[in-house]
């Protein structure tokens, strides 16, 4: 079976984002405001895929995130499944080359992920302050990182499709 060049390009971008998440982020010290490049990679994949593929990718990524921070195992899987599915479902309105639309999309996805995760973990009361303060700031940094990635990887992402 021949793999389409656009898929290979997308896979390269996703691999670079995931590697950067784990290799670069710790170099700047522990901060809840650090950009979440794994979420960016998931969104890049999901808006170029079918909703079902986005949901499955979200579930797998979420499960691995849950394993790394097992406070409420399954909460990230739940949140990212929903985010991945919605990202694939909304791709008709998210133009991959439009920076403004992508910014709003990534920001909303990051907030939705945090809200769903807190709800699923049953930590709404204890996590309310973080949702109101930390979460929007983290969403902003993730959005900035996503826009930077879009600009840097524009030649690879142009016309890339996962399905």
């Amino acid at each position, binding site marked *: 079976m021949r793999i389409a060049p656009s898929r290979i390009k997308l896979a390269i971008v996703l691999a670079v984002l995931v590697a950067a998440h*784990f290799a670069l982020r*710790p*170099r700047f010290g522990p901060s*809840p405001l650090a950009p979440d490049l794994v979420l960016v990679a998931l969104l890049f994949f999901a808006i170029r895929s079918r909703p079902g593929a986005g949901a499955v990718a979200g579930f797998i990524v979420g499960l691995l995130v849950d*394993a790394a*921070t*097992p406070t409420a195992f*399954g909460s990230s899987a739940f949140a990212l499944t*929903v985010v991945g599915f919605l990202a694939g479902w909304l791709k008709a309105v998210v133009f991959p080359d439009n920076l403004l639309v992508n910014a709003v999309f990534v920001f909303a996805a990051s907030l939705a992920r945090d809200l769903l995760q807190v709800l699923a973990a049953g*930590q709404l009361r204890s996590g309310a302050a973080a949702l109101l303060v930390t979460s929007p700031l983290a969403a902003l940094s993730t959005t900035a990182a996503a826009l930077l990635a879009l600009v840097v990887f524009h030649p690879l992402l142009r016309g890339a499709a996962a399905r």
Partner: protein
Amino acid sequence: MPIGAERYGSRADAIAFLACLVLSLTALALPEALRRPIAGALRTTVLAPVLAVERQAVTAREQRQNTVRLRAERDSFALAAAFVPELRAENAQLRKLLKLGGRLGYGFVDAEVLHQTGLSDGLTLVLSAGRREGVVPAAPVIAPGGLVGMVASVDAHTSVAMAWTHPDFRVSAMVEGGRVFGIVASRRAEASGEMMELRGISYREGLAPGTAVVTSGLGGVYPRGIPLGSVAGVLNESGGWERTYLLRPAVHPAQVSHVMVLFPSRVRDTLTTDFDTTQAAAAPPGTPP
């Protein structure tokens, strides 16, 4: 495929979505005894490479910081080299500031905190030391400032610590000097950030703001004398017979990058109440570092 059809997805997409949702909810509903082995298996297999990359990145950052610090130390020592007494004093001061390990002497292992993204970071911490390094479940996790939490689960080379900020965390505490005992738990959603609360204090025992609170050593999990925080004020009074106090924590887990995990041999020890500056009990002769 027309855009409209893509947008709303197919039946297969809906089935995949629902299947993933059900699996997620199943994972959430799993008992703790099943969650830990699954999470541990994922960390030691699929996540092992990325955790290794992250560990290297943390090490690189610390080496960079160490380089800057060592340059400063070298310059300081070069300046003071002509004055040996001053050099000795400065050396001792740097030891006190930088090496809690020197004070503890034995019975611990260093670990880096592999911070993760997300709101749960700070409630549980992934540590870079595991079973092979001697870490066991329920081992106390400390930082130079005081108690960080306890080890919840252990893998071969990593472990997961439950920080004191976790809603389930409790520790038996006492006021320095051992005249008042209580239970310390986390208190979240405070406007000023994460705080602790000291519960079960008799109404007649008034604690002044700033009073230091340390671990009591009761319960056989934490050594006596590890700083927890200081009294910030009265939180509430229950029917005129009990008070709950708000504590300002000694350590914020989300900001900790390096911790020490104590071995079981230290649990019965009394560590100093002046954690940052005073020497702990000396190691017995022949004890390996």
